[in-house]
């Protein structure tokens, strides 16, 4: 009887621990695919409907980035997304420092490595291509 109770207790503890982990497969897959040299820092889950009009990116967040550090910004999309997740980053003087979307060629990069040399607070702007509806995740990692 004591043995069964111990097993039951262990199962309950394991259940609670599993609940504490991220349950979103899109996030965990994106983190896993960031690369073996990348250490996970943060993720941004982006879910947007179709934009009424094309314009400024709709999902905005702030993050402090430190100099002498290489960051990797990975973007992943769920299968039912109409648009692809794109990222642009601005510094505190509102100057664009990077974009995962090349406007000249139309190329969308699934991840961008950023060698930061200026410590500060940066604005991360996410949206889906063409202001389309979409669901995705942006993962920030530090590259060793």
């Amino acid at each position, binding site marked *: 009887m004591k043995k069964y109770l111990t097993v039951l207790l262990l199962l309950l503890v394991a259940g609670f621990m599993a609940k504490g982990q991220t349950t979103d497969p899109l996030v965990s897959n994106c983190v896993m695919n960031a690369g073996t040299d990348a250490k996970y820092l943060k993720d941004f889950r982006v879910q947007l409907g179709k934009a009424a009009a094309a314009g400024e990116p709709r999902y905005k967040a702030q993050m402090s980035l430190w*100099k002498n550090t290489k960051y990797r910004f990975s973007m992943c999309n769920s299968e039912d997304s109409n648009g692809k997740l794109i990222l642009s980053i601005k510094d505190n003087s509102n100057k664009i420092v990077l974009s995962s979307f090349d406007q000249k060629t139309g190329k969308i990069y699934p991840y*961008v*490595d*950023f060698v930061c*040399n*200026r410590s*500060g*607070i940066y604005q991360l702007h996410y949206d889906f291509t063409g202001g389309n509806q979409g669901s995705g995740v942006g993962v920030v990692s530090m590259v060793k």
Partner: protein
Amino acid sequence: MLKDRIGEQKIILNDLIMLASPYCSHDTEFNALCRSLQEIKDKYRDVRITYTLGDPVSVEINGALVIQQTEKSIVEMSDEQLEGIIEVTRSIRDKLVINN
């Protein structure tokens, strides 16, 4: 390197103070926290962070985009200023640890 990291915390400190400020008069605990942050800010007052300008350089390596920032932040902090910051943070940390 570590000295630079400590100096750079001046950037985030102002944000922390701004976030805490609406609650400073709420209760004694927040009031003490705000005073502690202010003490740290005073020690950082003469630490200077300067910037050299430059445009980011982007290169494509094996299909991946790599952006190298040419703009740089430079921390100017004397050993005395660093010692002052270490001293005040040590005293605040000790108070927080003892209280908890």
